[in-house]
């Protein structure tokens, strides 16, 4: 009887030991899983955001691929005409001639070229027998040379001043020519003085150039 009691006590101790071992192992597994799951949930949430952003990018790229087909055909229709938007020939390469793409790039150049602007102004100002008294401006070539083509270019003003002399009708005609020019000239200050036989027109104006647009793929940081 005493021997059976001792055996039972040993068995009770063993059972208690097993309880401790099971509890410890289960606690370890549970805590490990909890920590690992928490990390994985964070990672899954982040990857979900990345997947969402990539889906948007794929959708955008797919739309762009579709759009390029239309864009290309529209461009070809725009360029391959017998007459350009100014009514000139599309085959010659002189002033007011050339295809529509050339006309557009002449109207809003994609590179900064102040001497070319001065030449254009010179021919515009002298077109009606007006006498040029002054053309001035600051050639910003060095600062602008750092501006490269980008995905979102913006127009850059090219200010200039000019003074011409002529009769009333010629001056009036010149102002209209500035307005009708396909190259945008925005007048800021205009001074007309003198008498109708010999008027002087001084203008402070600006025209523009806009760096070219390029197709570029960027990257975005997803947080």
């Amino acid at each position: 009887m005493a021997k059976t009691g001792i055996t039972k006590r040993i068995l009770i101790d063993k059972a208690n030991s097993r309880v401790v071992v099971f509890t410890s192992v289960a606690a370890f597994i549970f805590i490990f899983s909890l920590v690992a799951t928490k990390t994985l949930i964070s990672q899954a949430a982040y990857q979900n955001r990345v997947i969402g952003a990539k889906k948007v990018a794929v959708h955008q790229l797919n739309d762009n691929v579709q759009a390029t087909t239309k864009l290309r055909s529209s461009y070809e229709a725009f360029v391959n005409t017998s007459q350009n938007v100014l009514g000139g020939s599309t085959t010659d390469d002189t002033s007011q001639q050339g295809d529509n793409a050339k006309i557009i790039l002449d109207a809003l150049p994609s590179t900064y070229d102040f001497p070319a602007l001065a030449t254009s102004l010179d021919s515009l100002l002298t077109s009606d027998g007006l006498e040029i008294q002054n053309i001035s401006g600051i050639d910003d070539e060095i600062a602008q040379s750092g501006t490269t083509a980008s995905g979102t270019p913006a127009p850059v003003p090219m200010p200039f001043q000019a003074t011409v002399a002529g009769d009333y009708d010629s001056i009036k005609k010149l102002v209209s020519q500035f307005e009708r020019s396909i190259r945008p000239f925005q007048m800021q200050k205009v001074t007309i003085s003198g008498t109708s036989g010999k008027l002087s027109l001084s203008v402070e104006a600006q025209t523009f150039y806009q760096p070219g647009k390029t197709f570029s793929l960027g990257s975005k940081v997803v947080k």
Partner: protein
Amino acid sequence: MIQFNLLPDVKQQYVKARQMQRLVTLVSIAASAASLFILIVMLVTVDVVQRASLNDLNGNIKKYSNQLKSVKDLDKILTVQNQLNTLTDLHDKKVVTSRLFDYISQVTPSSASIRQLSVDFGANTMIIDGSAPTLESVNTFTDDLKATTYATDTDKTGATKAFSSIVLASFSRDNTKASFNITLNFDPAIFDSGNTVTLTVPKGTGGADLFGDQGSKQ
């Protein structure tokens, strides 16, 4: 009814210990299994499902990018398209300077002559420097400027004043003529290319020989 527990203490303790062991074992296995199951599900989601999705999306991005890069002259086409869009906006922002001649012709009395006209389209100001036979003509000129209104194709009432803050900044009179210098602000809408503007000036004004030979009018 009285019940007697005839099991020895040690036997009772042993039974309880066995029951506790079973319960703890069951709960431990269940908790471990559940947590391991969640862990494995998350592991599969992150390392298998999401990774496959990312690889798939990366492949599509690369494929579409290559398609776009292979389009001939794409940069030139985009540049022309962008310049064309910007040109419209830049032309819309131009002031219609040629209206100046019509306006001045309309508002200047026939007896007056303008020597210098300065317009600042940024500040919307105008300085008119000229001469007239009498100071009365100069007074009429400033009064007419004050009374000038305009109508546009969107606002046909014609009740809006074209000019404001009209000041006879300086004047002088000699035995042949009166000289004047008028400063004023103008409503920028009258030079807006988006509007067709009709200026309404008081009767009797206009028809001036603008920039005529100074002092020749009496």
